[in-house]
């Protein structure tokens, strides 16, 4: 039985599992809640949050990027985990005490303003939409290879599947579905990593394997450093000194963005008590860390393996996986010097091998000659990661439109039936729109997603933090801050991303900061504008100040909010 058989089997079985969970939990109650409430154990809630959080970017894309970036890839590892520390220490418990149910809701109440709510809402839509685009590309890459179709067709199939999933009720009973998705994705990610770690180093734990000696008695990283050096690249573990400022900014943008992402924050409104909000963030990060500490090992193994199996080998005798991936257009070989060998070099004029980073995790089991069922498992895992995140994001998009925009802003008298339709239509538009954008995304999955984080960091993080820690912060400050932060960040991104029609070149980057890291600067601008403007305008009322004071103390927190999915 070949990989294709196993892919169909695993994808089919897991998909059926998600839909059945949705149907079963629907039968349990007449209304469907985005619960993480008293019925769900904090551990299960942590798993669901982890699945919600880890997307196609974490699963499919990140290890591949690290494999080719080496040391600098640490920005994704630190950036996407460090944000949870901020979330647990600075946001989650206070937001839980405040007791609202979406981020625009918090902003609207704390800053006593419909306009503030509207600005937050628009920011939430932008952030979530950009993030969904990343998921669509991930799904597209997976399907392209395993259904043997070009990438574009893969994305179109992806649109169909996510759409089908959302409409069929994949978002109902979302907490339980996400627990299942976490189990599948973490199993799918670690199994091949363990196999390969055993093959390479005899060490069961990939985290330890990364620092161990390979079977020839040399440390893996030392060997990889030598291999990369020989081909003209920087050594794998070497610090890229010209890139340090940029790495600093990207890491910070990812961290602060994590702490400002609407679909993550929403999780902490729904836990039973304030202390559970803190603990919940801890469990979530622990579950996330399992994947995030495995990924750098996968990256190093994959890079070593590719160099060993491809570099200087005759093209004709390359293994089957190479030919398979060529079919998707995501891997290509051009025999520049007509010697029939594959020259893989840092020097662009001599290099003959082009690899899309996003294929590494999916191709890894094939490259390492693992049994075909592992390959099917990995595809199912990637799909689980993409679907769980897409569902969380679509939930934010649909509640933003139906609840925050229509019900609270434009049409307070909207009937329940129409609210339901508005939610459905916004999901449909978001999926199709994101899919089409995914056909020509501005970069690799992880990079597209990184842009969403920059937007979140530059808009929400300061508004929420100041709303909690600064009693003097008022409506005028928060609104001008959010607008200046996100507008600055968007302009910089659009200007420097050729795929978005930008005319800037990397030479023009301010202090060498690439668009993925500019959210940090946007955030600083937001902070400065918000604080200055608030000091020049009137104080918030006594009532609001008292409210801000009260969220500092856990005592007296209300019941958790339940979020209805219609």
């Amino acid at each position, binding site marked *: 039985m070949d990989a294709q058989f196993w892919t169909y089997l695993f994808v089919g079985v897991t998909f059926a599992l998600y839909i059945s969970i949705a149907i079963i939990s629907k039968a349990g109650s007449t209304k469907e809640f985005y619960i993480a409430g008293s019925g769900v154990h904090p551990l299960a809630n942590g798993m669901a949050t982890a699945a919600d959080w880890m997307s196609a970017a974490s699963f499919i894309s990140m290890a591949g990027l690290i494999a080719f970036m080496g040391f600098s890839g640490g920005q994704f590892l630190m950036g996407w985990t460090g944000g949870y520390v901020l979330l647990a220490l600075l946001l989650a418990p206070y937001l839980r005490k405040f007791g609202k149910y979406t981020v625009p809701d918090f902003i609207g109440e704390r800053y006593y303003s419909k306009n503030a709510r509207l600005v937050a809402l628009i920011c939430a839509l932008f952030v979530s939409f950009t993030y969904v685009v990343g998921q669509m590309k991930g799904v597209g890459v997976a399907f392209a290879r395993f259904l043997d179709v070009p990438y574009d067709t893969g994305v179109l199939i992806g649109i169909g599947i996510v759409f089908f999933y959302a409409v069929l009720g994949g978002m109902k009973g979302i907490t339980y579905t996400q627990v299942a998705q976490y189990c599948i994705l973490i199993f799918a990610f670690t199994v091949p990593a363990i196999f390969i770690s055993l093959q390479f180093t005899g060490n069961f734990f990939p985290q330890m394997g990364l620092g161990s000696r390979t079977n020839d008695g040399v440390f893996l*990283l030392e060997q990889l450093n030598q291999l990369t050096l020989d081909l003209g690249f920087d050594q794998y573990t070497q610090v890229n000194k010209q890139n340090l400022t940029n790495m600093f900014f990207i890491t910070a943008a990812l961290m602060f963005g994590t702490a400002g992402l609407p679909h993550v924050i929403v999780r902490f409104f729904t836990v039973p008590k304030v202390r559970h909000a803190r603990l919940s963030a801890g469990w979530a990060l622990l579950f996330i*860390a399992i994947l995030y500490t495995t990924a750098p090992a996968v990256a190093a193994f994959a890079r070593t393996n590719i160099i060993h199996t491809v570099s200087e080998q005759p093209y004709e005798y390359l293994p089957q996986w190479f030919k398979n991936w060529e079919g998707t257009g995501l891997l290509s070989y051009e025999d520049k010097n007509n010697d029939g060998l594959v020259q893989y070099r840092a020097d662009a004029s001599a290099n003959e091998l082009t690899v899309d980073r996003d294929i590494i995790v999916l191709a890894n089991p094939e490259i390492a000659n693992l049994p075909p069922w592992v390959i099917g498992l990995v595809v199912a895992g990637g799909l689980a990661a993409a679907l769980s995140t897409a569902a969380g994001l679509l939930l934010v998009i649909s509640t933003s439109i139906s609840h925050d925009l229509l019900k609270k802003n434009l049409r307070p008298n909207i009937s329940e039936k129409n609210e339901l339709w508005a939610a459905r239509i916004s999901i449909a538009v978001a999926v199709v729109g994101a899919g089409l954008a995914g056909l020509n995304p501005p970069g690799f999955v992880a990079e597209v997603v990184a842009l969403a984080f920059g937007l979140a960091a530059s808009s929400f993080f300061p508004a929420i933090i100041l709303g909690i820690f600064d009693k003097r912060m008022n409506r005028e400050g928060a609104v001008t801050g959010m607008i200046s932060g996100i507008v600055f960040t968007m302009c910089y991104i659009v200007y420097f991303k050729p795929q978005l029609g930008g005319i800037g070149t990397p030479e023009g980057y301010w202090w060498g900061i690439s668009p993925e890291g500019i959210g940090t600067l946007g955030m600083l601008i937001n902070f400065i504008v918000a604080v200055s403007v608030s000091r020049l305008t009137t104080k918030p009322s006594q009532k609001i100040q008292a409210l801000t004071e009260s969220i500092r103390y856990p005592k007296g927190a209300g019941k958790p909010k339940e979020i209805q999915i219609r």
Partner: protein
Amino acid sequence: MNHKKVYWKQNLKYLAILLSIWFGVSFLCGILLADFLNQFYLGGFPLGFWFAHQGSIYVFVCLIFVYVYLMNRLDKKYHLDEG
């Protein structure tokens, strides 16, 4: 000073300490000082590389659990917990 003020001050002190560690392991050890630290080894790992790819993540997880422990204790001490 009333007990709520003392509670809040103590909370801010915890935050300052824990966030300094957070900044130290990632932005300092994992980025700015990584090149210097790479001359030391932890098994097969150059140390700076280890912080960027492994160590900081382990520390992050510990930080949150330490914070949970400290705050639960503090809530109880000042009777500000939810019971």
